[in-house]
C-alpha cells in the first residue's frame, strides 16, 4: 500500500502559480496518481489523474518524474476560490477494493489577496 506524504499547508497570493508535491516512494508498477480537491463541508472532487510524465486538463497539470516516486500538482494563477484541501492518492483498484486507496491528511492551501 503506497503511502503518500504531502506538506500540511501552503499559502499563496492570488494570481500566482502553486505547486504541491506529493511523495510516494513505494509506488507500485500498477499504481496511478490521483488528486482530489475538497472545500469545507463538501465532499472531495476529482482534479486530475496520471501515470507518468505530464497530464494537463482545464484546471491543473500533473507532473510525474520518470521514477514516479513523487508527483507535483500545479495550479496556474490561483484565485481565492482555490482555497481548499488537496489530497494526493496513489493506488490501483483493478482488484476492485477501494480500501487500497488512502486519502492521507492532505495539503491545506490558503490563497489571499
Amino acid at each position, binding site marked *: 500500500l503506497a503511502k503518500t506524504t504531502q506538506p500540511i499547508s501552503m499559502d499563496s497570493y492570488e494570481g500566482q502559480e502553486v505547486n504541491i508535491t506529493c511523495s510516494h516512494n513505494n509506488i507500485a508498477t500498477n499504481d496511478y496518481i490521483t488528486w482530489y480537491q475538497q472545500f469545507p463541508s463538501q465532499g472531495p472532487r476529482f482534479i486530475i*489523474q496520471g501515470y507518468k510524465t505530464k497530464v494537463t486538463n482545464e484546471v491543473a497539470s500533473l507532473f510525474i518524474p520518470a521514477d514516479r516516486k513523487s508527483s507535483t500538482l500545479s495550479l496556474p494563477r490561483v484565485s481565492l476560490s482555490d482555497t481548499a484541501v488537496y489530497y494526493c492518492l496513489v493506488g490501483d483498484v483493478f482488484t476492485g477494493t477501494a480500501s487500497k486507496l488512502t486519502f492521507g491528511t*492532505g495539503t491545506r492551501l490558503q490563497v489571499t489577496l
Partner: protein
Amino acid sequence: EAEVAQSPRYKITEKSQAVAFWCDPISGHATLYWYRQILGQGPELLVQFQDESVVDDSQLPKDRFSAERLKGVDSTLKIQPAELGDSAMYLCASSLGPDFVSYGYTFGSGTRLTVV
C-alpha cells in the same frame, strides 16, 4: 451535472442513540462507497458495495455500524449506539464500476454528525 444525494445534511444525536444516513448515488452507478472523515483528517473508507453486495467492509466497526443497499441503488448507513467518537462527516461516493482508475469517484456533500 449529476450528483450524489445525501441526507440529512446535519445531524445531532445523543450518545447511545441510533442514527441513520441515506445516500442516493448517481443513476447507473453500480459501485457505492461510504467514507468517514474526522475533522482535520482525510476520508477513510468504511464500506464498498458493488450493486447490492458488500465488496469491502474491512474497516467498518461492525459492532455498532451497519450498511445496506438492498436493491442495489440507494444505501443506508446506521450507527447504533452512537458514541462521542463517531462525530464526523459521513461521505457517500459512487462510480460506474470498481475500477477507480477508469471511473473515479463522485462524492456527495456528506452528513455532518455531532454526538453529544
